[in-house]
């Protein structure tokens, strides 16, 4: 079958990429790099298993996980080239944890068609997770209260932490999808509940001073509410409210004012507030269309080159054409998710798929747009590529949700094809 050939082709290309990049990393060292070899084997095996074995059991969508594995492998190998221990190996462990989260999420979605019983618990849990970082100054780091530190160095630098807002993303999508798909509740009540939940989450994240994540939450919630209730007035009033809130935040927050000023002319403050953006633009320009070569760029000159500006570092070493291909792959994943939403037979599944796709797409747009000076810079991560355990696990869990929806959709479609046309009265039934 043609589709199976395409699947094999795509898997082979991804494995070829992993092997070629890994081989170059191994050659970079004076002595044989066993860790790089193990990484290559692990990533290639994982890609093969996800593409060939797991779809047979109906657990994953081979298209989505193959593309996800390409991005994750690129992220792991690139982080390894930048920093072997703190970057590459930790990213590899996060990838493994993310795979477990993907399988669990896929399984849960196949089992549960409604979270009505758990709504209150999920909401209270999310509020607690977001609120805990506001309770004590120990959670404050780099001007925001977004992380729960697990390990600090003697100088106070956070070595290991959890970002609760990454996990609350999943709770937001599930809660909104469940409420908006519940036809036993009236339309006005569904709108009110969804708006109140969104305002509560966005408000708490704004109090953490993490406006990038707040923007993600707001745009995803707006998409979901619009798709769920199908009313253009909701979209218009939501956009108006968002613009109003943005203006208020601009007046209150000096950080946001700095970011907007830097967006207009970053070179005016190239040594100060605009340093990050200027270095990012210089790196992308230095790379040109084909890049400088893996390991040959000067990624260290870009601040936060392993988290917020990983896209700039990738464009510097691999080239702008490569960066465009990566962006196109994100677009393909978004299209696949929205197609799943359109094919879903249950509203809950449709909204779940739409929510997860929108979240990934908005996150990608926000960070890449900030890095290339299209929109003000924010502190969100690039899915699968940026260093960060919470982000990796959360994004892979979203892919797991999409895989669960895919499994349900394909199962329903396959069985519905067995049904024949409606029959007339069966014998014995009274008229």
């Amino acid at each position, binding site marked *: 079958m043609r589709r199976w050939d395409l699947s094999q082709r*795509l898997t082979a290309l991804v494995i070829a*990429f992993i092997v070629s990049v890994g081989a170059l990393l191994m050659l970079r060292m004076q002595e044989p790099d066993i860790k790089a070899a193990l990484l290559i084997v692990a990533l290639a095996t994982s890609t093969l298993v996800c593409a060939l074995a797991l779809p047979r059991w109906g657990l994953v969508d081979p298209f989505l996980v193959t593309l996800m594995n390409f991005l994750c492998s690129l992220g792991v190998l690139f982080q390894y080239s930048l920093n072997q221990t703190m970057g590459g190996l930790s990213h590899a462990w996060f990838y493994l944890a993310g795979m477990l989260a993907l399988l669990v999420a896929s399984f849960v979605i196949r089992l549960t068609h409604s979270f009505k019983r758990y709504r209150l618990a999920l909401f209270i849990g999310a509020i607690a997770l977001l609120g805990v970082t506001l309770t004590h100054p120990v959670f404050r780091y780099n001007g925001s209260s977004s992380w729960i530190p697990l390990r600090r160095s003697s100088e106070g630098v956070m070595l290991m932490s959890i970002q609760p807002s990454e996990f609350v993303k999943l709770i937001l999508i599930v809660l909104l999808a469940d409420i908006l798909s519940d036809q036993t509740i009236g339309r006005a009540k569904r709108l009110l509940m969804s708006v109140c939940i969104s305002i509560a989450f966005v408000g708490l994240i704004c109090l953490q001073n993490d406006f990038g994540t707040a923007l993600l939450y707001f745009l995803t919630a707006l998409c979901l509410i619009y798709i769920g209730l199908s009313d253009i007035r909701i979209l218009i009033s939501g956009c108006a409210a968002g613009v109003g809130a943005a203006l208020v935040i601009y007046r209150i927050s000096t950080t946001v004012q700095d970011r907007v000023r830097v967006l207009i002319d970053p070179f005016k403050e190239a040594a100060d507030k605009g340093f990050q953006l200027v270095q990012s633009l210089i790196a992308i320009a230095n790379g040109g269309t084909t890049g400088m070569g893996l390991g040959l760029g000067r990624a260290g000159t870009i601040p936060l080159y392993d988290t917020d500006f990983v896209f700039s570092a990738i464009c510097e070493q691999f080239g702008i054409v490569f960066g465009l291909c990566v962006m196109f792959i994100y677009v393909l994943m978004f299209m696949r998710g929205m197609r799943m939403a359109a094919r879903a037979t249950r509203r809950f599944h449709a909204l779940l798929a739409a929510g997860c796709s929108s979240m990934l797409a908005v996150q990608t747009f926000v960070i890449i747009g900030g890095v290339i000076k299209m929109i003000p810079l924010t502190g969100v991560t690039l899915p699968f590529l940026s260093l960060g355990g919470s982000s990796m696990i959360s994004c892979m869990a979203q892919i797991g949700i999409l895989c669960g929806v895919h499994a349900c959709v394909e199962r329903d479609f396959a069985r519905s*094809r067995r*049904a024949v046309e409606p029959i007339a009265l069966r014998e014995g039934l009274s008229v």
Partner: protein
Amino acid sequence: MSRNVYEGVANILKFVYMALAALIAICGAQWLRADRSERRRAIRETPDTQSVGELVVVGGASAQLALEQSIELPREGTIGRSRSCDVCVRHRDMPLRAAQIELGSEGVIFSPSRWENLTVNGRVYDKSVAVVNGSRLQWGDLTLRLLIKEGATDMVSARGDYGVPVALPPIRRVRKERAEPDAGQADSSRNMTRSPRKRVLRTLDVSPREDDSRRDRQSHEDS
């Protein structure tokens, strides 16, 4: 490896990485397109896959609802007179939002809206009820008969069979005299001009539904 040699190899391989990324992107786009074409073909072969049954008007016909007119029933949704309902029944006796419907393992579950009742086979219900195939639903003068597709409820009862590969089931061969739809003809003629390697080698396996159902109805009427 010396620095110079590494730089040389890296400068060569960067083109390889670029080409691989472009091929992955193109292959992904091709896959999406092929998946869409296959889905459209599958829906064309079995066009009723989106509905699980129908409601047939057997009493209380009006200008907008003719006798024996059938209304498609989705897997889940709402039924009522309002245009925002998934099943819109334009009859004066039908409430704006009559009930919420969902396919269950025993039949279609009707959950009446608040302050509404549901009459099934002469009995009045104010709570959720599973309505089996052939039952009569009544709202005022309007009477509808529920027909559920054979095998539709299996979709629900077989929910727990994890581990079974999710694959399209084999379906019966189509008769040669069955007329192909225009889009299908255009597709097949386009396929014929393609090389054998690119031609989609697939037999359109579709059950001869229309002929069989017509024969069934005729035999039922005769009996």
